[in-house]
């Protein structure tokens, strides 16, 4: 069931392991001619400015098994259109992507480009008929559909996700606004498709540049409200699209049959493994999962597997989905983050060190937890694929829900410094997002001279007793 785009060499193929009915889990293989192959269901690593947060490119190669990444154009275009973004000046050999080279992404890793970060920061200005609001490193701006299509052509990711008109952050969306969403999104899909087709016509078939595949957005509104858009996707554009970007997993129930066979990428961000499993049960293939990095920043090492460990009798208490590495109980623990985990953090380091790194606010703490959390997700998805292949998915999901708690543990410790693109500003007078790193001790001098000090023969344990070593742990 492969899908060769009509007017380009075959780029992306998607083969399902076996025929599946709508609204059932499915397993398959997504292969790009560049060499990237992803067994689905799987996830794309979410990047920030070209890197998975905390993971430098060398660690990405050595210590992750991430097969695909999601990159947001808004991370790269700064003052477009007033100023040409620096990246646009980078030329790449005919068969390479300048974006891939710029961010030093290995050629075997699938590169998916979308307009906005996942999850996007809501913007104050509304989208227009020709442009969406975005947040670049220089502030809130807009990018037009034409500029977005041009960016895809210039940067040549493996897959580009079509621009969708979605008013992020808006609680209630009126019916008229929803009408507009599908009208605009259709228009913008036509823009990006015609840009790509135009590109192909100017080049002779045999030395055609590697092109990109287009994923069409499916809007988070009911099928009725986007029926025109969906009809036109099926009638006019189906040959040009290689996949779907789905903003509401419930829509999997209402997809036209002509769009059933192509891969589905979820932007309906699951907030827990259980919610992710639910989307898979509806037939989702690919995910972007913000909770991985959110757990990392909170100092939580994910700790779950699929199917769950078998237990002779149901555990009295449900097992936690993660370990809070801020807890003082890990202070002297030589245990890995998760037993049986073979990631770099678990094989080379122990909880005591990682707990220390968090408490000392050393960057390496988040590096190690991030590597671990991605490894846990790799194993989780491998377990899911096996389970689908052996037709035990439904039972395994039930066992998972019975075994684990519903939510990830609450964050107790402090995260790394947050950046402007990670939160929505609430306007004037808001508090500082990052506590000050340093403060002076201005206690009166007298307390020093009056103080009792240990005698000369005291050893360091006396020092410790008065607080040199462990005082800061008392409260935890």
């Amino acid at each position, binding site marked *: 069931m492969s899908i060769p785009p009509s007017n380009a060499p075959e780029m992306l193929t998607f083969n399902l392991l076996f025929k599946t009915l709508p609204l059932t889990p499915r397993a398959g293989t997504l292969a790009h001619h560049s060499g990237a192959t992803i067994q689905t269901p799987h996830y794309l690593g979410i990047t*920030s*400015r*070209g*890197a*998975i*947060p*905390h*993971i*430098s*490119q*060398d*660690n990405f190669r050595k210590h992750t098994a991430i097969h695909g990444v999601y990159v947001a154009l808004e991370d*790269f275009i700064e003052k477009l259109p007033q100023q040409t973004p*620096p*990246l646009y000046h*980078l030329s790449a050999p005919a068969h390479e992507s300048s974006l891939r080279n*710029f961010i*030093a992404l290995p050629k075997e890793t699938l590169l998916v480009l979308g307009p906005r970060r996942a999850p996007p920061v809501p913007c104050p200005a509304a989208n227009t008929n020709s442009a969406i609001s975005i947040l670049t490193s220089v502030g809130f701006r807009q990018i037009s559909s034409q500029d977005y299509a041009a960016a895809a052509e210039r940067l040549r990711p493996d897959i580009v996700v079509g621009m969708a008109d979605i008013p992020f952050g808006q609680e209630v969306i009126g019916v008229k606004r929803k009408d507009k969403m599908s009208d605009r999104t259709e228009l913008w899909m036509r823009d990006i498709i015609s840009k790509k087709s135009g590109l192909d016509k100017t080049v002779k078939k045999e030395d055609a540049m590697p092109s990109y595949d287009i994923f069409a957005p499916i809007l988070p509104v009911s099928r009725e409200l986007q029926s025109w858009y969906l009809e036109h996707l099926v009638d006019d554009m189906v040959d040009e699209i290689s996949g779907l970007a789905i903003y509401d997993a419930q829509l999997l129930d209402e997809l036209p049959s002509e769009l059933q066979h192509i891969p589905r990428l979820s932007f309906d961000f699951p907030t827990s493994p259980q919610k992710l499993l639910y989307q898979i049960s509806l037939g989702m293939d690919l995910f972007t999962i913000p909770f991985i990095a959110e757990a990392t920043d909170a100092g939580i090492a994910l700790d779950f597997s699929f199917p769950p460990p078998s237990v002779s009798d149901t555990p009295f208490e449900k097992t936690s989905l993660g370990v809070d590495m801020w807890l003082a109980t890990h*202070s*002297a623990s030589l245990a890995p983050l998760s037993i049986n985990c073979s990631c*770099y953090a678990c094989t*080379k380091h*122990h909880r*005591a*060190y990682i707990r*220390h*790194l968090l408490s*000392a606010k*050393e*960057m*390496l*703490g*988040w*590096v*190690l937890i991030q590597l671990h959390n991605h490894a846990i997700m790799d194993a989780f998805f491998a377990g899911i694929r096996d389970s689908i292949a052996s037709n035990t998915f439904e039972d395994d999901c039930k066992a998972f829900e019975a075994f684990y708690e519903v939510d990830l543990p609450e964050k107790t410790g402090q995260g790394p410094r947050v*950046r402007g693109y990670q939160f929505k500003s609430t306007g004037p007078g808001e508090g500082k997002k990052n506590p000050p790193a340093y403060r*002076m*001790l201005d*206690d009166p*001098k007298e*307390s*020093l001279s009056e*103080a009792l*000090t*240990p005698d*000369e023969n*005291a*050893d*360091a*344990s006396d*020092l*410790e007793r*008065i*607080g*040199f*070593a*462990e*005082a*800061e*742990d008392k409260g935890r």
Partner: protein
Amino acid sequence: MAPVAMPSALTYELLAKCSVTKARAAILHLPHGPVPLPIFMPVATQASLKGLTPEQLEETGCRLCLNNTYHLGLKPGQATLDAIGGAHKFQSWPHNILTDSGGFQMVSLLKLAKVAEEGVRFLSPHDGSPMLLTPEHSISLQNSIGSDIIMQLDDVIATTSPDLARMEEAMERSVRWLDRCIAAHKYPERQNLFCIIQGGLDLNLRRQCTKEMVARDTPGIAIGGLSGGEAKDEYCRVVDACTSLLPEKKPRYVMGVGYPEDLIVSIALGADMFDCVWPTRTARFGNAVTANGVLNLRNAAFSGDFSSIEEGCQCVCCRPKEDGGLGITKAYIYHVTAKETAGAHLLTIHNVHYLLSLMKSARTAIMEDRYPSFVKEFFRKLYDDKSKFPEWAVTALKGVGVDLLGD
């Protein structure tokens, strides 16, 4: 009242001496493996080198890094270090570690630190409660850390202090504290205690201190109290005066020195070991250390510069992807600096690699007895014009027979 010669857990194997300058090339055999001298030691203050995994640090070529006793004493604390079995195991670092005494941090980080004969009095940075760090505490902590090289607690005051009497007191106290450190040191057979020569910028005090310290026969010798804002030619005079009095068969460590030109000149003056937070700290501000000087990659001029951080550099960031590297460009560092920590990690790798490979080239030059021409070449690359050569370097190098301004 110098105690009897203490055991040593190192071997200093002298390989070559420059026939012109006082530069030396050697192998220092330490409990966790040999390290080449001269050497730059990156500073992993809190048992972690600023976001790098021990494996990444190892790949820069590093085999000896620093931990700070003061920081490890606060976190994770001595009890944890004892429970885990020392800092090597704690941070999974299979190579050598050097720890300072903790005294310097007291004085430099804490507003209200007071030095008395029994030790350094200070207020806890956590709750403001008063504490005392004695030579015995410091050594006990360093014994728990298990570092391969440990430093005596010394009385550090700014070299720029005009108070000669206080300076003399500090120098003499440092000698007395060394004796207390030697007496308190539990594992001389596996941890090497280095003395620290004090005496400010007064060469007589320095010579007197050197004599006293050398008599204690520690496995290695450090020159301390420098790099505190003194004029560079005064710094050079002190290093030169001290190394002239030091035994040939012992490693010499100049504390807190880290600019490339300082290292190159100090090697010519007979120093072997250096440490500084500058290369790693400056990396986090987007500064790349290169043979042609420091590049501030946050400058918009680099936003569209798609060349490697430093051409020909063999670090994993700079090597092109065809050679198994990452092919990171200046423009990409510009793109991520101060926005994603991964950018800081990449530049930290480059900067540490730069200094380690600079030391390697210096060492090769000494072995091939062409250190003077190496020094000239280094300064020519760093400054595009001879008129820009720093005067202190010209003077110091002239003192050891190198005419930087000549051909």
